[in-house]
């Protein structure tokens, strides 16, 4: 039987959702065009070419190196794209994903990425076209809800603030808002106004968010109810304290 990695312990729905996101077992829920994505990221004009920071690798005379021969460059690296970022903010009110899980997702499923994890936000730096692929994947699938997960480049607060009356995560710079049934962005991720309204799709209902969330919450799935996760976390902490993560030391003593 082929080895199937299990990325996260636990028997609850939250643990299962974390495994799904880390293992890229995602459900596509909405469609966002490439042009709309480029507009909200705000790194280049929609429809324009990718600016480059060096010539394509094929045109460069690279030194003979066994590692370079062994590792296939990502499309962005091959074309010489600039390094650009996408940053997600997740509300603590049952957002589908959380910063740590987003970082695991990026590091496990993509190459050439530099994920950064903070308490309420998560940033991924990568070559521009590789980054756009990751951003689109997260925005279109069950990893995001348009009302509880937003793209924000500057003034990235809101994850721990109470929701607005319409259930949308508060944004001090008013980039994302509810327009009828759908959530729209009329500013890019650094709050520069756009010449269009980009629809991010319909928000999930509260019941759906409770099912899809990867956040343990006392009013939904409390952390303490997941005994398997608790057991593994205790094991990791105990081994780190006693043996400094040295495998084999425990057995030999």
């Amino acid at each position, binding site marked *: 039987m082929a080895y199937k990695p299990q990325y996260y312990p636990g028997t609850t729905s939250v643990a299962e959702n974390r495994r799904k996101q880390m293992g890229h077992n995602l459900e596509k829920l909405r469609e966002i065009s490439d042009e709309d994505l480029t507009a909200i990221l705000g790194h280049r004009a929609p429809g324009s070419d990718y600016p480059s920071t060096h010539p394509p690798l094929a045109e460069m005379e690279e030194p003979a190196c066994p590692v370079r021969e062994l590792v296939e460059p990502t499309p962005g690296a091959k074309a010489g794209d600039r390094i650009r970022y996408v940053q997600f903010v997740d509300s603590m009110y049952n957002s589908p994903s959380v910063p740590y899980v987003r970082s695991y997702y990026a590091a496990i499923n993509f190459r050439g990425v530099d994920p950064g994890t903070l308490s309420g936000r998560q940033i991924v730096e990568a070559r521009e076209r590789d980054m756009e692929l990751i951003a689109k994947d997260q925005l279109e699938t069950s990893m995001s809800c348009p009302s509880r997960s937003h793209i924000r480049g500057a003034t990235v607060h809101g994850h721990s603030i*109470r929701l607005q009356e319409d259930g949308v995560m508060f944004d001090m710079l008013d980039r994302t808002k509810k327009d009828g049934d759908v959530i729209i962005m009329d500013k890019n991720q650094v709050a520069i106004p756009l010449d269009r309204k980009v629809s991010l799709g319909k928000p999930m209902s509260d019941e759906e968010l409770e099912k899809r969330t990867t956040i343990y919450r006392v009013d939904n799935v409390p952390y303490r109810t997941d005994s398997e996760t608790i057991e593994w976390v205790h094991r990791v902490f105990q081994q780190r304290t006693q043996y400094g993560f040295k495998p084999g030391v425990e057995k030999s003593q």
Partner: protein
Amino acid sequence: MQNPTKEISESEMIQIQIVPQRILNPETSEKLLTEIYNCGNIRRVLIQGSRIPAVVGYGPGKGQKVQHHLKKTLNIGGQEVEINVTLSKLYVEVYNKETADKIKEKCENVLPFPFEYYEGVFFKKHSTVVDYAKMGPDADDLLIGMSDPKASVDNIKFIEQKKSDNNC
């Protein structure tokens, strides 16, 4: 802030805190504040919430106008009041228990979601060094605890109490 209708000692006054489960829309904020204003017998009202800036503060979009959909001028008791924060938490000091109960009832009627209601001590009792630096030695008791240490006292709005409204 409203003028006292009669002389009541500070120990008889009641301070209440209202914490709605959601950040209020300007329409709901205006409705709630108007209902509270109409109760009369109110000494002070303090609003807390997330700041809504007029322009983007930093980043590549620095200086761009924000024009937040939650920022609107409120009409309270016939007076236009511009608030720079969302209404996320409310402190009210009232002259008697009946008014406090009435305000709780108004919140139940106006707010479409649950809220927390507390009675206790929420306003500063004594002047601090910062208050002394800002307002001098003879500061009005009403102004103590009404603004953040670094904020200007200009943020305080005075709303006249109509005599006919004191029917609580």
